[in-house]
């Protein structure tokens, strides 16, 4: 563990992102939490989380990496459980599983090479790192925890989760797979599209943002798989800024109007412009319109795939990028252009106007600054974006059209879908229904309390021992 590790080309974007995010989380936490006890707890937890983050970035071996990852996990778990203990439990268990997998992989690497140093992972142990960091970075099917945790955490904690905690998975992937690695490209492509698709449906703003995070993580994973870790790191920085803003401003909206349901929020922009402005601005930058950093980076990711990639991979990534504009429009447009008079005006908190205005403008300025200076920041990180649209114009056009079509179709169907969006795979995890419950019923028979059975088991055990030894 040495501080010199902090400032290499990969870590610097993460460090910068962490710095901004932790400061803004502390500031917004002061405003978000009303009870003094909660405020103190949040401050302490942010301190612990930032200590863990610094540790992650500066650690030179995998063991310390996992060690600090778990400290970060624990403090975030505690933050989430301030609001939703159940979602926090799912988060904690999934992250512990991830850490355990990475630990096993690390042990394997140590047995293989005799060193714990962070670096490329030899062949047989890659799967553990992929699974472990896959849970952290929410690979498809391993993402079960993400919508829950991001959607239900307090907003400052969501910002940290989406802005930094999931990025540690990307950081680990960059470190473990510095060379091009085709499966990651495949996973990243699927993930980007899947996340974007799932983000179209929910009415809960934070849930949309959660799936959007998954989609962006897909872009980063694809970049890692293509072997260009610098682009992934730069993407992570940009995305951390934008998501930090979006989640915090979603928190402002929630606090102001008492709801996150986009149906109930219709027309709220007219009532309270300052509260909604930050969200809209963030959405504008996240949508990846030409001229923003997101646009630049998405294209860099697509071009980094190179010409060897099968045709559908850039196609799907382009579509996912286009769909980002669609789902963000889904959650921002109704704020201004719809009238909600028939549902009555949403709850409107008086007296906080100035704070909201200052906060939102500050965040807005921060994002604009980050975005407009982005090319020079990239230069400072020694990243060569090498912007050359890899996919030809026709393919990009078809992809955009397909994305638009999907969004349109989804919009038409939106009314029939529950507030939380399409059903996800988290049912597998719940105790009340699902495999765990079934197992619970079966394991009840494992200890019958009958002495004869015990002796019989011992005898069977003896026979098995005799046969194997």
């Amino acid at each position, binding site marked *: 563990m040495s501080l010199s590790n902090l400032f290499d080309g990969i870590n610097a974007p993460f460090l910068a992102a962490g710095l901004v995010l932790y400061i803004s989380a502390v500031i917004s936490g002061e405003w978000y939490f009303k009870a003094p006890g909660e405020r103190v707890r949040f401050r302490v937890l942010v301190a612990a989380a930032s200590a863990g983050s610094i540790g992650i970035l500066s650690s030179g071996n995998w063991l310390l990496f996992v060690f600090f990852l778990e400290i970060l996990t*624990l403090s975030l778990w505690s933050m989430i459980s301030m609001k939703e203990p159940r979602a926090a439990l799912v988060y904690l268990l999934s992250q512990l599983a991830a850490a*355990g997998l990475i630990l096993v992989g690390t042990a394997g690497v140590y047995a293989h090479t005799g060193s714990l140093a962070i670096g490329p992972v030899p062949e047989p142990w890659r799967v553990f790192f992929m699974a472990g960091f896959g849970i952290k970075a929410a690979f498809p099917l391993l993402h079960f925890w993400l919508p829950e945790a991001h959607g239900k955490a307090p907003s400052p904690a969501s910002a940290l989760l989406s802005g930094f905690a999931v990025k540690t998975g990307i950081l680990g992937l960059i470190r473990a797979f510095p060379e091009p690695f085709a499966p990651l490209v495949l996973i990243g492509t699927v993930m980007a599209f899947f996340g974007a698709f799932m983000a179209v449906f929910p009415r809960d703003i934070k849930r949309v943002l959660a799936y959007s995070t998954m989609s962006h993580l897909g872009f980063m994973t694809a970049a890692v798989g293509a072997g260009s870790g610098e682009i992934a790191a730069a993407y992570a920085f940009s995305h951390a800024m934008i998501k930090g803003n979006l989640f915090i401003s979603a928190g402002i909206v929630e606090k102001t109007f008492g709801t996150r349901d986009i149906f109930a929020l219709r027309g709220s922009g007219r009532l309270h412009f300052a509260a909604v402005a930050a969200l809209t601005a963030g959405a504008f930058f996240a949508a990846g319109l030409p001229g923003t950093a997101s646009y630049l980076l998405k294209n860099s990711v697509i071009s980094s795939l190179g010409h060897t990639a099968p045709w559908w991979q850039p196609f799907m990534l382009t579509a996912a990028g286009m769909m980002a504009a669609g789902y963000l429009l889904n959650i921002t447009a109704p704020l201004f252009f719809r009238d909600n008079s028939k549902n009555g005006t949403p709850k409107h908190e008086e007296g906080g106007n100035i704070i909201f205005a200052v906060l939102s403008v500050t965040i807005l300025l921060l994002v604009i600054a980050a975005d407009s200076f982005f090319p020079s920041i990239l230069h400072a990180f020694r990243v060569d974006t090498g912007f050359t649209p890899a996919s030809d114009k026709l393919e990009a056009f078809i992809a955009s059209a397909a994305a638009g079509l999907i969004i349109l179709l989804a919009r038409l169907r939106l009314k029939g879908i529950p507030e939380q969006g399409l059903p996800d795979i988290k049912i597998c995890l719940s105790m009340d229904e699902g495999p765990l419950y079934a197992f619970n019923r079966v394991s009840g028979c494992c200890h019958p309390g009958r002495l004869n059975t015990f002796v019989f*088991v011992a005898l069977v055990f003896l026979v098995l*021992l005799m046969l194997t030894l």
Partner: protein
Amino acid sequence: MTLVLAIVVPLVAAFLIPVFHLARKTLPVSLIGIMGLISLSASMAAAYAGWFSPEVSLLGGWAPEIGIVLVADRLSSAFLLITGIGSGAALACALEKFGGGPWRFYAIFFLLLGSMNGILLTGDLFNLFVFYEIFSVAAYLLVAFSMSWQALEAGLKYLVLGTIGALFILLGTAFTFMATGILNMALLSEALVSVPRETLTAISACLVLGLTIKTGAFPVHFWLPDAHSSAQTAVSALLSGVLVKVSIYALMRVCFLFFLETNGTVFLAITVIGSLSALGGHLMALRQDDIKRLLAYSTVAQIGYILIGVGCASAAGAAAAVFHSFNHMLMKMGLFIAAGNVSDEKGTREICKLTGLWKEKPFWVLGFTVLSAAIVGIPPLNGFMSKWFIILSSAGAGTVIPALVIAAGTVISAAYYLRVLSAFVSPGESDQEDPFKSSPRKVRSKIVSLTIVGSFAMFCLALGIMAFSPFSREYFSSIGRTAVDVGAYVGLVTGR
């Protein structure tokens, strides 16, 4: 001489207590405390002697081929330390809870202490069996000591299964003796090399089965949750923290000495047992409603971790197993003492009824939290480090599945310990009383138990940080090297 004293002093104490009882009906607490201190310092002296200069004492001056040998090397010393600390803590808790009243309890306790030291120090296979039987009888009696029907049933089941285990150990000893004609473990480790394959199979199957039953690993674990959950608090802590470790020592000693060079499959079997045990223990703990039973199943799982370490058949694995044994002693004793005390005061052991404790007794809950975080394997604590060492040695031995089982176990154990903790911190139930609930007893403030829990929690934190320093890691790995170095042990005993 120190080695003999470590066995004889507790036995003398066990004999003296009934004698004192004849003079006075209630023994003074200080008397038993002093006896305990003397006995523990005798075993610590043996541990000290064995750690810095491995020591052998030939009883009665007979040569090792004929007579009984007591040996103390670093492995024995480490386990002497574990049992010393653990039984000291249990004795303190028992003295605080019972006072000097139940003299039988203390007599059995000292008998147990003496026989444990005997198991840890003996170098003779049959002598091991004899001490093991004294130890087991004392353990059955301690389990059944409260004479409640749960305790009696658990004691009887423990007795029957334990006796079957002991019979298999005896059978293994008999086979060994028939095959080689010697009982000294050091000489046996040389003689068993030339024993035919089939005989060796029978010997190893009998010994492994017997010792596994005594250890309480998964397929034959049935007595363990019953006994650990039915006994009184101090006894549960003693059972889980100390007695299990003694069985693990016996398993380690026998397997490393006899089968390291002759029958490597034994270690594969131990790894399989350990993995099963870890998985089964955790999964069974997940569905428990009784807090002590949950902790008992958690012990089954932790035994699995230790056995995975033993099954690596390497110095690193043995060191990790010893380190985890030590950590588990600290963690599980603290957890049992904390859980026993809060459930005694609440008058119930059901987890869902143990609510509102964070308001009533924050220190107990805090201690429980730290210790359960340690046993789950949360980073700055010792559980994480010992788990990491076991995973590392398991991967080093070329098997990944045990390591994955440990990783899965972390997740499951986090789930069930969090359930307990969330019950503790949730607001207490309203004033309406459950008519079937036994009335909460008025209990004296348990300052000694609380101190023990607190210091164990501190110890967990300190060990977790210490494990990073190469200096302390060197100490631990020296235990492992001693455990697998059969040649040095043989040389020590025979004087060659």
